[in-house]
Structure formats: structure tokens, C-alpha cells
């Protein structure tokens, strides 16, 4: 197994009478991109916050590779700061000696290269979120914990984040991506973890999770679905014809991550 960027074992968190996390195990290897999915209130943000030390766990163990970067779901930078000043502050706090070269590279990565002297208060929400991503990458972190990093971004901004995640993979930075956008996870993540009600209810590569396929056959009485793949089509059609059905069309379907996600979450309820 590759060295670990994040190792979580038996993680529990209780808020009053409510169990936000009920024994979560999660390991992220160096350079691995893991998507964290789950409905609202599933415990995703709590898990991320515990990993970066903002929330104290009620039980379990967390080991995080340092340095790490974090982008909160709800964050703000002081409006009076310029983009460059935000990064300078975080360079000082992390002890980064990257200087102006690092700041320039990071702003370029998030497509804010022309906004060095722009004040935060003059930036759109999307620009602030991209600045937040740049801030999270200050000091060359080994692990990035991203909590809904695309929530305020337009499609172009989301594309920028996807490109950024690919660049991070190239650099060997591990990422925990907490998001509701399944398409992002499908496109960039090595593994997917679905949690619901504080428990991991499914985990695997996108291909493993999406694995199941089916055959949809259009009959006179409507569409019927059969389990199986492309190789099962001749047999299914032959059996239907032998049974006196008229076949008007056949389609091999493959369950999407969305199907898997919705089924998994529904099963857990």
C-alpha cells in the first residue's frame, strides 16, 4: 500500500444527542484523489473538519500528513486584503519560502494571474473561491482537504478546478474532495467514498461502483429491464420472441455513479 496522506480509523463525532459520525474508516494514499459523497447532513464536512483539526472527534484516530491545505465550505478572506496579501499571509503562517514565484504560480493555476493587486472585496464569489484554492496550496501541501470547492463556481470555474485537480495528481498531491457534483468525482477521482448518517455505505473506484449494467427492451407493452450486459442481448431477445413478444428496440445500459449514489443512499435509509 502507498504511504498514507490521511488515515482515519473508527472516527466518531457526537453533537449533543446527534451522532454525526459513527465509526468511519478512511485511508488516502499519497497522490490519491478521493471523492467524498453523501447527502446533506451525512457527516462529510464534519469528517473534513476533524481531519484538519477544526472539530474535535468524540472517538477514533486521525493521522494527517503535513503540511496539508484546507479549503472550507464557508470561508472568507478579509475584504481589505489583495489576492497577493492573502497568499503572503498564508506563506508566513506555513513558513513557505516560495516568495513571489510561488504566489504567481498559484494565482496562475487558478486563473487569477491578473488579479494580484485586486482586493478580495472587489472579487466575485467565484474568484474568491479560486483564491481559496490557491491559498490551500500555499506551502506545497502533501494533502488537500477540499470542502465543496466548486459550490460558487460557474461551469468555466469548475473546469478550472478539474484541471487543477489533474495538475495536483501530476504533482503527487493527495486530495480529499468533498462535493455534491458527481460528474466531477466521476471524471477526476481515483476512488469514491459514499457516507450517509455518519457511516461509510459504499467505497471503491468509480468503475467498481458503476459496474452493474442492464438491458432495456422496448416491447409493445412498454420498456422492460433485464440484468446483464451486451453479451446477453441475443439470448434475452430470443427468449422474448419465443414467448410471443414483439421487440421494437434494445439498449444496453450502464448504471452511472448517480444511480449508484442514489441507490446506496436510499438503501441506507
Amino acid at each position, binding site marked *: 500500500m502507498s504511504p498514507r496522506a490521511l488515515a482515519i480509523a473508527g472516527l466518531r463525532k457526537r453533537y449533543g444527542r446527534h451522532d454525526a459520525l459513527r465509526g468511519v474508516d478512511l485511508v488516502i494514499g499519497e497522490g490519491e484523489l478521493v471523492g467524498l459523497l453523501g447527502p446533506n447532513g451525512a457527516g462529510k464536512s464534519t469528517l473534513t*473538519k476533524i481531519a*484538519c*483539526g*477544526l*472539530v*474535535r472527534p468524540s472517538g477514533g484516530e486521525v493521522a494527517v500528513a*503535513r*503540511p*496539508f491545505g*484546507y*479549503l*472550507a465550505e*464557508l*470561508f*472568507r*478572506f*478579509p475584504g*481589505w486584503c489583495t489576492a497577493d496579501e492573502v497568499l503572503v*499571509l*498564508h506563506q*508566513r*503562517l*506555513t*513558513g513557505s519560502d516560495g516568495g513571489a514565484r510561488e504566489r504567481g504560480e498559484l494565482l496562475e493555476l487558478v486563473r487569477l494571474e491578473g488579479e494580484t493587486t485586486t482586493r478580495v472585496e472587489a472579487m466575485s464569489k467565484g474568484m474568491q473561491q479560486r483564491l*481559496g484554492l490557491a*491559498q490551500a496550496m500555499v506551502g506545497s501541501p502533501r494533502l488537500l482537504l477540499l470542502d465543496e470547492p466548486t459550490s460558487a463556481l460557474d461551469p468555466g470555474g469548475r473546469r478550472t478546478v478539474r484541471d487543477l485537480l489533474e495538475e495536483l495528481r501530476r504533482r503527487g498531491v493527495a486530495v480529499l474532495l468533498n462535493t455534491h457534483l458527481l460528474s466531477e468525482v466521476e471524471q477526476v477521482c481515483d476512488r469514491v467514498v459514499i457516507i450517509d448518517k455518519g457511516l461509510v455505505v459504499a467505497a471503491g473506484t468509480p468503475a467498481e461502483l458503476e459496474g452493474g449494467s442492464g438491458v432495456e427492451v422496448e416491447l409493445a407493452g412498454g420498456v422492460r429491464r433485464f440484468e446483464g450486459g451486451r453479451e446477453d442481448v441475443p439470448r434475452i431477445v430470443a427468449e422474448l420472441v419465443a414467448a410471443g413478444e414483439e421487440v421494437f428496440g434494445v439498449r444496453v445500459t450502464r448504471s452511472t455513479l448517480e444511480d449508484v449514489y442514489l441507490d446506496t443512499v436510499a438503501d441506507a435509509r
Partner: protein
Amino acid sequence: MSGVWIVAQHALQEALRRRVLLVVLVLTVVFGGLYAWGCHALFDDLSGFRDNDDGLDATALAGSTIVGLAMFGGLFLGVVLATFLTAGAVRGDAERGLLQPLVVRPLGRGQYLLGRFLAAATVAALYVLLVYFGAILITGAIGDWWPAHPFGSAFRLAFGAVLVAALSLLGSVFLGATANGILMLMAYGAGLLAGLLGAIGDAIPSPTLQHIASTASWVLPFEALYRDALRLLVQDVPGVTGAIVQLGPLGGSHDAGPLLIPWAIVYLALVLAAAGWAFARRDL
């Protein structure tokens, strides 16, 4: 300690860039101008009281009273400044999302808290000292009255503002900025009221009122420091003038004793430790 310094610098930079300090300085200059005007008018009006033979030193009476008034005003403004700079330091900034990106850095919550305290305490203490020494200089230049112990009073006033900054920081761990700000100003007002009751208790005399004031002094030592600063201001004014200024609303008849300063230091350490302890256990 570098993290403390970075956070303190950032907080001071924010106060400068958001023009908080500029507004405060402009208003202070206006205050100084009005104070000088009032001083000039006051000492001008004293001409009728000079050379009287009832033992009243009109210059000392006027000088100590108006400097006492400036001390009250300076400390009040210093307290407001300290409160504004710290009221939202933890919960307020966390609710706005400003805190989280900072405290996940290899900084430590204790260092963050100390940095915020250092910035607010420095600004508030310097401001109180500026107003106090400004008032002393203006009063001396216009009325030729100089207090016997200007530095002892200055230290106590500045320390009072520092204590309020620490208390406000502690409150910020539990309360949002508005609620904490209101709480701090009400606590400050309650402390002053208790001090006034103590002055009345000393004049009547009333052991009950004295007990109330004494209890408030231990619970809220910034008030006791203020009273002690006033006491130092007027303690060497002799005769009937001394008696009058000590029993007046801006007088300092009550001697808090030698334990006040050590207790204030311990109190400050306890408040900061409590703030650090509570912040370390707070989920953000």
C-alpha cells in the same frame, strides 16, 4: 512565537487598512481640541477664586477634576477600542468564515489568541496613554497644574484597558461579536457604577456600599485600577482641597491596597488561560 507576531501584525494591519485607527485618531484630536478649550475656559474662570483665605486651592481642584474627567473619557474610549478589536475574534470570525483558514495552519489556537490579544491590548493601552498624557500636558500648559504621580496613574489606566481586552477575548470564545461587545460595555459600566457606590460608601460612610465596591474590584479589577489611578492623581492634594477632590465623583478616596497590582496580573493570566482552554475545546 512567530505565529503570535504574524497574527498581531495582521490584526494591526486590518485596523489600519479599515481606517479604524485613523477615525480614532481624528476623533481624539477633536477631543483634545475640545479638552484644551474647556481647560482654557475653566482656568480662566478660576480668577475669582484665587487668593481666598479658606484654604481652597482652586487650581488643584480644577486641574485634578478635569484630568480625572479626561481619565474617565480616555479609559472609556480605550475600553471601546479594546472591545471592538476583540469582540468577534473567535466566534464572530468563525461565523464569518475568517478564522478557519488561519487556525488550520501550523499556528496553534493559543498563538492565534495571543496574537489577537497582543494587538488589541497594545492599541488600547497606547490609546489610553495618549489621551491621558495629552490631557496632562494640556492641563499643565494651560492651568499650570501637574499631578504628583503621573506615571503610576498612567500604568493603572493602561493596565485596565489591557484587562478589558483580555476579558473581551475570553467572551469572544463563547459569544458572537454583538453580544460580546454589549456584555463587555455593560460589565465596564457595572464596574464603574460599583466604584461610584464605593465612593459614596466612603463618604457616608456605608459598609454595605463599601463591600459592594470591594467585591466588584476583585471581580472586575479594571475598575479598581481606574479608581487607584484616580487616587494616585489626587492623593497629594493637601487640606480641604484634597478632601473635596477625593470625595468627588472623579476622586479616588478608596485605597485598594498593595495586592491590587499582583491580583490584576494574576487575573490577566487566568483570563488568558481560560480563553486558551475554552478555545482549544471549541469546534469551529
